[in-house]
């Protein structure tokens, strides 16, 4: 029996966090949510299989700052960005650094679920490549 994939959700807005976590649980993902990038870095033990859904503008370390820190780690999980700010420069920069998708709030549920599936496919491939290497 396979365990459900992990989705790590990081957003400082409680309403957004609660609603997105609920959507993902309804769709049978294992969700862990965090209200800041710092909290995530300090407390999360990331599973090998999963992905990260990340808000951009948060108090303290920003979404892009977290991406940079995760890139410095060896086994980073794929990132999906959700943001109310369509800043083109940050969008281009984060996609270039490997973010799977950059979704503008408010987004359609299917848009997010599709992006998560794409991220999980990429995650499985990367884990396989790492184990072969």
């Amino acid at each position, binding site marked *: 029996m396979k365990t459900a994939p992990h989705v790590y959700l990081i957003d400082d807005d409680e309403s*957004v966090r609660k609603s997105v976590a*609920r959507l993902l649980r309804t769709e049978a993902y294992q969700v862990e949510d965090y209200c800041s990038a710092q909290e995530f870095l300090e407390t999360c033990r990331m599973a090998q299989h999963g992905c990260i859904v990340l808000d951009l503008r948060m108090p303290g370390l920003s979404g892009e700052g977290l991406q940079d820190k995760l890139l410095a780690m060896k086994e980073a999980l794929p990132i999906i960005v959700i943001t109310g700010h369509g800043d083109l420069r940050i969008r281009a920069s984060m996609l270039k650094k490997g973010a799977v998708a950059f979704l503008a709030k408010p987004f359609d549920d299917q848009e997010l679920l599709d992006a998560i599936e794409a991220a999980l496919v990429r995650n499985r491939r990367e884990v396989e490549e790492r184990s072969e290497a």
Partner: protein
Amino acid sequence: MELAHLYERAPIALCVTDTDHRYVRINQQLCDINGKTIEEHVGRTVYEVIPHLADQIVPMFQGVIDTAEPVLDHEVRGETLSFPGEERFFLGNHFPLISEAGEVQYVHSMVRDITDQRRAEASLKEANDRLEERVRLRTAELVGLGEELDVAAAERVRAQEEASRNKAELAHVLRVRSMGELAASISHELNQPLTAVLTNAQTALRLIGKKKPDLEEVREILEDIVSDDKRAGEVIRRLRTLLRKDPVAQETVQLDELVSGVLPLVRSDALGANVRISVKSAPNLPPVEVDPVQVQQVVMNLLVNAIDAIRGLESEGGDIEVEISRAGKQGVSVTVVDNGPGIPAKEISEVFKPFVTTKTEGLGMGLAICKSILDAHGGTISVENSAPRGCCFSFVLPLKQRAAS
């Protein structure tokens, strides 16, 4: 005998019909649904007993007889004698009973009344449709607000045009006016609840599409939608109060009251960045004659900048002090001091020029607009770094407005 008793008392509606669709056997549950006695059923056809539902039932019975295959989850809807004037919903499973000769002799039916379930689903769907409609209306309001903002911004730009000598810079300002940092801050305030409402509503739709919807979960979702909708409505209400005033009107106002009116608009930003804002006001300040909306925008912009400056630090929050006092005999000043990182010395003389910003997400429009507003009012705005850290913006408005040169 026991089986007959069980059939009679089973908590599900049961009947057996023959190949002419005549009732051979029926239990009390189904009699209750049809509103007739056992005697009124046995020996009569479906057409005779329930004529208004027979067209939905007889062709299906004939199908079971012709194919010798059961029909499962067959839904029938319509009025019954037991509930006159009401549409009821029934779900039935129908099995062929085959004789030793291998032919279908009877159809055995089990029927469940699913009216309550259907109605619960319908009212949930309706509640969701209503909420989605509200989200749609709110979005339309937002678009309207955006247009009002455009109007306010256009007025601002026109004032700047009169005040500034650099027409080339102004053309650029005009093109990006609606993308100013103020609009970005407001859209952030509205985007969060709208995102939560949309995600919650869509999740509720997914839940009620399931075989056994968790109604308690759906109720919690609806409660969250209601509170987020109110939260968005509150932002819009505050904005309307700010924007509906005539943007070119000159009014006599107290600057301390004007500053107090801005604080609620930046409260959630301040909380999110763990920033305390304190206001100190000198007693008996004389009034000034200004366009209150434009001056509120200046105050809001300075506060948002100060919050952003502190937010960027990895420290434990910060403080903003706003002070309103007399500036000599001719004016009233408002000073905003933060304990953020301050502005690099080589950039401090540039901050009021368009497209100069120290923020990663900024457009560099906010302070340029502030300066244009003060120019148009015959006022001044200045900045200096304060010791030991942070910076201090202050603007002065004259007691009586002079014509802009």
